[in-house]
């Protein structure tokens, strides 16, 4: 099915902090994305920036693709300035997506910052099965809390400054939860967020022997496995985040 699509911006608005919601309307028939997959989006009609930017799918409703994005640099700044009605080209859905938990497994979904985009789409799919752990710098950085609460068995929140939920990091609330659990055997972790957080969650998972998946990030040029720019070190050598990932088994990654 066609993966190189023209999309029309339907909404592009600030939610709070530096978080934005982008809704794209696509005319063509296209594949339905699964949670954890991403799209490469054109952020400028000129050659500067030249490359498309990867964003995780947040939601798809009929012919509308929604993304949550945070302003990071030149590309996302330009994206924020693009107005409704503008046509942009996009490539997707790309990557593998999260493998779903088995009937017996209890999913723990862990999101840091804008990593909530892909975690949200998974929570929605799991429908009341998952415990969700969501960390941000402060209260204003957290988005879609009420919606997540609707999809989650329970939502635990932490902020660096304590303005909402527990003061501390997502690792603190995760550890607290794990301490209250007997066996770790039926648990399965899904995590998406900044690198230091992924690393910390992976350490917990390894120490406590919990199964799990991380959604990795790396600078991308093509998004489809051709340039070899986006690799991550695994126990089976380098793997491409865009093709073999972005979701990897938490025990497969070699952290450097």
């Amino acid at each position: 099915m066609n993966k190189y699509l023209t999309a029309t911006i339907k909404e592009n608005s600030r939610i709070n902090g530096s978080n934005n919601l982008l809704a794209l309307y696509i005319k063509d028939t296209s594949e339905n994305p699964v949670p954890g997959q991403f799209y490469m989006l054109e952020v400028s009609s000129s050659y500067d920036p030249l490359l498309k930017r990867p964003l995780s799918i947040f939601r798809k409703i009929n012919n509308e693709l929604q993304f949550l994005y945070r302003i990071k640099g030149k590309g996302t700044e330009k994206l924020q300035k693009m107005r409704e009605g503008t046509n942009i080209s996009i490539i997707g859905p790309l990557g593998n997506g999260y493998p779903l938990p088995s009937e017996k497994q209890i999913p723990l979904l862990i999101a840091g910052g804008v990593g909530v985009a892909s975690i949200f789409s998974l929570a929605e799919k799991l429908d009341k099965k998952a415990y969700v752990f969501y960390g941000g710098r402060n209260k204003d950085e957290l988005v879609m809390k009420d919606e997540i609460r609707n999809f989650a068995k329970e939502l635990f929140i932490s902020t660096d400054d304590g303005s909402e939920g527990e003061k501390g990091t997502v690792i603190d609330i995760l550890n607290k939860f794990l301490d209250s659990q007997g066996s770790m055997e039926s648990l399965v972790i899904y995590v998406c967020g900044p690198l230091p957080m992924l690393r910390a969650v992976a350490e917990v998972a390894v120490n406590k022997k919990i199964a799990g998946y991380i959604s990795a990030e790396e600078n991308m040029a093509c998004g489809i496995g051709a340039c070899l720019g986006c690799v991550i070190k695994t126990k089976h050598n380098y793997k491409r985040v865009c093709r073999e990932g972005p979701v990897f088994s938490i025990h497969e990654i070699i952290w450097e």
Partner: protein
Amino acid sequence: MKLFGNNKNSSTVDLSVNIGGLKLKNPVMTASGTFGYGAEYSEFIDLNRLGAIIVKGLSYTPREGNPVPRIVETPAGMLNAIGLQNIGTEAFIKEKLPFLRKFKTPVITNFFGDSIDEFKKSAEALSSADGVHALEMNISCPNKKAGWIIFGTDPKVMGKAVSSVRKTTKLPLIVKLTPNVTDICVMAKVAEDSGADAISMINTITGMAIDIRRRTPILANVVGGLSGPAIRPVAVRMVWQAHKAVKIPIIGIGGIMTAQDALEFLIAGARGVAVGTANFVNPHATIEIIDGIEKFLIEEGVHNINDIIGSLWT
């Protein structure tokens, strides 16, 4: 260039070119390292429409490549320091060639080594494989034995490498020049005199980007190769210079995004073009460029693409 006025019959436009004995249905190829091993783009475009497919650079034994970050974007371009990650000639022949043989499009294998011996071993293995139609020798890597001299920057080292490889293969041999030299014409001439059937140019231009807050280089490898529209004027100039210096055909490469860009190279003297970074931005780029060249020739009333090659008025 002859101008015939508007030509109504599009079927009379002949796009085929001959690159050092290799016949192509049109001059548009894929630049090595930007098209994977072909399969990656086959879900986006019909590979049968391409002039040729040039695959990712191969070494005799597999290579792991550099640590990340390997790519960073720069104004109208990108820097890459992939570090020549590849699966090696043997795995390529076994795992990737059978897929490529299904298409009517010639396959050109880009290859490299860090010694003349390794170059020869790769060239031999690839020449005897069913489905390889030409070799593109990437001399932008360092010659370990000669003390990390880049093969493509020292005329003597390059001459020796090219003539050694020449003896090992009957396939058309294309030498890919690096722009990181003082006089590109000297290198083009060395390639021709050492037995190359064609040259391709340019490879990436060495560049660097710095994280000003951390005061560190952004790429793990510190420096990388610049590609994309930012390098096109440099590439066009070099193709034009080399075209005057040598008789063998030239494949023009560097920042080609559109048919107009490709036509600049053809008019400057390139007989073929290869599209690189544009594939990342637009997976349909090669096809749009082929169609665009054809449309341009119809508009200009040019029946044969060879009439436009090297047609620059100065």
